């Protein structure tokens, strides 16, 4: 693949997009997992799917325009979905997790309607669902790069606040941190990263790239910073190896990447067991 990367632009796009996503998805994933919000990523990815389906429908039946690009439409839906989740979480104060299935089913419902209106599946949709090595364009890569930088800078600047908010929300509020604002910014980052990841891992598997590396990392890391470092390491390993396997075996990369993440998780669990005995 190494020589091929220099030859084919589409491989470069896929490879570098993968590398970027391998950083940001686990990075956000750490905060998502420790706050027990793992399902939020799932809910948002299904809303993103609705956006993609809507754009494919518009493209097919009506007009195609830069604004209706599936990537941007997906992102817009994802951000809108994150706002709804926040709204619902404050409506159902004592059942905050209810917001997630509500948004998740709305996302699937809308997607199914849009897909059937557009006369069912096509290969394009398939690549959004499961990822694709060949579907990433140069402009997608730039967008992902832009999102990645934005996410890293924001997390860096809000690290203290996010840490305290994740660890002890009451204490965060009592020390005067604008919990709502920080949380709001965070959830928008999640929405953006989900949209950014879908080209490579696919909508259905985005959330696993955010949670599986973290699940492995938490088993062995000492402290929060180390958890972040290991998560990114594991995420990166799954993405790069996954892309290579996907390319040579002609598989959808979403599957290979996620299965590698599962494999890493298993190895970590076994290693930990073995070391203890």
């Amino acid at each position, binding site marked *: 693949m190494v020589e091929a990367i220099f030859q084919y632009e589409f491989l470069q796009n896929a490879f570098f997009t993968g590398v970027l996503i391998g950083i940001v998805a686990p990075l956000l994933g750490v905060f998502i997992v420790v706050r027990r919000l793992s399902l939020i990523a799932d809910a948002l990815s299904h809303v993103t799917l609705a956006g993609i389906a809507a754009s494919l429908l518009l493209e097919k039946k009506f007009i195609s325009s830069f604004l209706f690009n599936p990537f941007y439409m997906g992102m817009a839906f994802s951000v809108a979905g994150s706002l709804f989740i926040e709204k619902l979480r404050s409506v159902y104060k004592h059942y905050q997790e209810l917001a997630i299935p509500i948004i998740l089913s709305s996302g699937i419902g809308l997607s199914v309607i849009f897909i059937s209106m557009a006369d069912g599946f096509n290969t394009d949709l398939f690549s959004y669902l499961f990822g694709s090595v060949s579907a990433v364009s140069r402009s997608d890569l730039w967008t992902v790069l832009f999102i990645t930088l934005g996410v890293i800078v924001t997390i860096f600047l809000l690290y*203290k*606040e996010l*840490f305290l908010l994740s660890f002890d929300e009451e204490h965060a509020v009592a*020390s005067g941190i604008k919990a709502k604002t920080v949380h709001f910014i965070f959830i928008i980052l999640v929405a953006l990263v989900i949209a950014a990841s879908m080209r490579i891992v696919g909508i259905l598997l985005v959330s696993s790239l955010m949670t599986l590396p973290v699940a492995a*990392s938490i088993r062995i890391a*000492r402290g929060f910073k180390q958890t972040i470092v290991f998560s990114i390491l594991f995420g990166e390993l799954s993405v790069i190896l996954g892309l290579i396997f996907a390319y040579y075996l002609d598989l959808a990369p979403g599957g290979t990447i996620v299965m590698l993440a599962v494999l890493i998780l298993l190895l970590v669990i076994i290693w930990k067991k073995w070391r203890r005995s």
Partner: protein
Amino acid sequence: MMNEQEIVLKIENLSFRYEKENVLEDINLSVPKGSFLGLVGPNGSGKSTLLKCILGLLKPQTGTIYLFGTPISEFKDWHRIGFVSQKANSFNTGFPATVYEVVASGLTSKLGMFRFLSKKHRQAVIDAIEAVGMKPFINRNIGELSGGQQQRVFIARAIVSHPDLLILDEPTVGVDVHHVQNFYNMLDELNRHLGITLLLVTHDIGTITEKVTHVACLNKHLHFHGKAQEFAQLDSKELSQFYGHHLHVLSHDH
């Protein structure tokens, strides 16, 4: 401004209810700088609720709270207040953070947005950990500590920012006798030498009268508020009136 009579905390006509019934009614209280106030009262008397109002976590339906002379609605210097909550160990015990990281998070609001720990801050974190005797555990994950050890870490987190007012809601629950003694010595030190004002909720009426300067006795209303000596001189009949039932824990000599 730095005179001894500066009022750190002032509460006027405060009433609070979660649902229909008032949990706190018509509370008036003022805490001068440098004092050590023990807040006592039976279970469900509203002690934690009152603290949450003071910390701005709950909004009372009537009345006003002043922190350092500023009405709470306009108060911004939250880093001047340290807080150890009653359920400090209700956090997610699997959380992957070291003792150091948890204590350092106590500096979050003091630092403010977009600021990072300096060398001086790092030393303050280490000092606070040392003060509660947790130095040997500094790089342990918080979930791998016993409940009492965790509690001591949370005390370190509360004092690391050198607050002017330290609020503690039954901080010694689950901490062993030896460390409770150390803990009270530490509070003494903070109170006398650094002039930190303390507000401590406790059920340990026996020891508290020896340590604190003032006592407030809460049971929906504020039944008593005065000097510790005056409180110690109350007879058990008066006390049980405040408590609404008879009290056995008053004296420690059997």
